[in-house]
């Protein structure tokens, strides 16, 4: 815990995430206008009334960005959480049960890992009715495999440990062992998986919405990007409309990435920055 607070990257990332969560929870405190209201002048540049200008239809970009935060964050967190859970169950079960179960689950994981994510997302999202639920479902469907391998490796190394042998000797069921003994031990790895996955879910969610496949009726950063692109924002000179949501997505991704990077460093001391003293002890 101490290590997390002392690590600069973790602090920076954590602050970013906290800020975004705050905006998502209390949008009214930061933005004031109704994001859907198309009552302002069109394609206005930045001003005090409209910090980021207005859209082609006369909506306030800043408000959209603020109010769109909640849904963007919800989608990301829900997908990452469910995918991490699935990933964990599959990875640990494969590691612990072994044999044919392991081989089949590993094969399944491999298939999902090789299939190119965005093309699969596009195909799935096109067939399902548009909406946030669809978005969440398809994203979860394509993301669970990302971390399954690592979780399986960890499960394998834990399998031989004494406390598990003790549980087996006590006569506990396999499912009990997996849920109550193994998984809590892997907490830090699970959190790291969640964070690492979130980095990519943010990008994929935004990418899908950018292409118009998601929930275009709702306001999220991704749908803002879609409408900006459709409305030819850059050509029309309304760069902020196109760039602001993109920057927000990048910021959210960066927040997760920083915290994840810090986790990596804390877990693997070899990755930490090296204090260079005398040249000789390095290679």
């Amino acid at each position: 815990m101490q290590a997390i607070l002392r690590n600069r990257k973790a602090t920076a990332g954590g602050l970013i995430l906290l800020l975004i969560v705050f905006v998502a929870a209390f949008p009214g405190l930061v933005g004031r206008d109704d994001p859907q209201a198309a009552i302002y002048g069109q394609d206005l540049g930045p001003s005090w009334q409209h910090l980021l200008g207005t859209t082609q239809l006369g909506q306030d970009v800043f408000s959209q960005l603020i109010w769109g935060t909640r849904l963007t964050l919800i989608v990301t967190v829900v997908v990452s959480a469910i995918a991490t859970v699935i990933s964990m169950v599959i990875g640990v079960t494969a590691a612990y049960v072994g044999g044919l179960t392991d081989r089949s689950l590993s094969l399944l994981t491999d298939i999902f890992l090789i299939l190119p994510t965005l093309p699969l997302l596009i195909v799935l999202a096109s067939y399902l009715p548009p909406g946030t639920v669809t978005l969440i479902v398809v994203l979860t469907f394509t993301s669970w495999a990302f971390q399954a391998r690592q979780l399986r490796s960890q499960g394998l190394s834990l399998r031989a440990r004494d406390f598990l042998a003790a549980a087996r000797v006590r006569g506990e069921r396999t499912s009990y062992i997996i849920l109550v003994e193994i998984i809590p031990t892997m907490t830090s790895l699970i959190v790291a998986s969640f964070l690492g996955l979130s980095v990519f879910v943010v990008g994929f969610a935004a990418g899908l919405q950018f292409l118009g496949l998601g929930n275009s009726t709702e306001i999220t950063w991704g749908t803002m990007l879609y409408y900006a692109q459709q409305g030819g924002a850059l050509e029309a000179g309304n760069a902020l409309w196109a760039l602001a949501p993109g920057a927000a997505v990048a910021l959210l991704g960066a927040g997760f990435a920083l915290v994840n990077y810090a986790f990596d460093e804390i877990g693997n001391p070899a990755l930490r920055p090296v204090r260079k003293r005398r040249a000789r002890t390095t290679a």
Partner: protein
Amino acid sequence: MRYVTRRVGLFVITLWAALTVNFIIPRVMPGNEASAVLATFRGVNPAALHALQIEFGVNVHQNLIITYLQYIANCFTGQFGLTAQRVPVLTEIVGKLPWTLALVGVTTIIAFAIGTLVGVMSAWRRGGRLDGILPPMLFIVATFPVFFVGLLLLFVFAVTLNWLPLSSNYSIGATPSLSPAFIGDVLTHALLPGLSLVIVTAGLWIYSMRNNMITTLAEDYVKMGRAKGLPSWRIMTDYAARNAILPNLTGFAMQLGYVLGGSILVEYTFSYPGLGYLFYTSTTDHDLPLMQALFLVYTLAVLVCVLLADFLTAGLDPRTRDA
């Protein structure tokens, strides 16, 4: 040999999975595909409807298994049906393929080269102020959504500075030829999309290569290399880099799927008329045969690259040769 067999097996199974996904989804998802297309036509007579159904493989009079097998056979012979514009899907794809191939091929090679060199060097030369700042910064740039990088570049270079074109792969009105003028035109159009891809992909590869290298440098055999008094460069290449890269080749190849996804977004951002842009238009047109075929093309591309990486590993890594 067993290793190779296993990897070829994985190739076949994944390909089968992709084909099956394509087959199953329209039959499972809400909304019959033929009726989705038909919604754009009105007053179609039953015979035409039936013909369309056959064409889309939704032949209600035929056994499902036979339809399935026929569908697979069709895929292998390149019969992917017709697009919404009544053009053979295969023709459409083959026409746009070179543009995407060039864009992705060149950028991937450049990104891999940069990623490997910078990753290896930055792991080798640890210490100093840079070591604490550069890697996380690279990591963050690698996580930037590729379309954001693209939009940013567009804003700076195309809109503000007006140095480079805003979209497409060559100027309107230019006729394709092998003349230097045309090629120059193509290159200026491909520069920004290519740059966006390179930035994000290289960032990702630098990060993974650096991590692999750092782990490898901690190995005993690298210490042994030092102990034997070998020159630094030899330790870095023969003992470290080689052991960092080679076993991970397949892993790198698998990241290609992510790169291809990025290329789709880049093409959309820049209205670059390659396979990615085609993929996008197929979704707005509800052009299901085209969409499915493109999904297969992208999947096949990744599978082939992964298999190539597997073969390379088998050939060069003595441990897998014997496995």
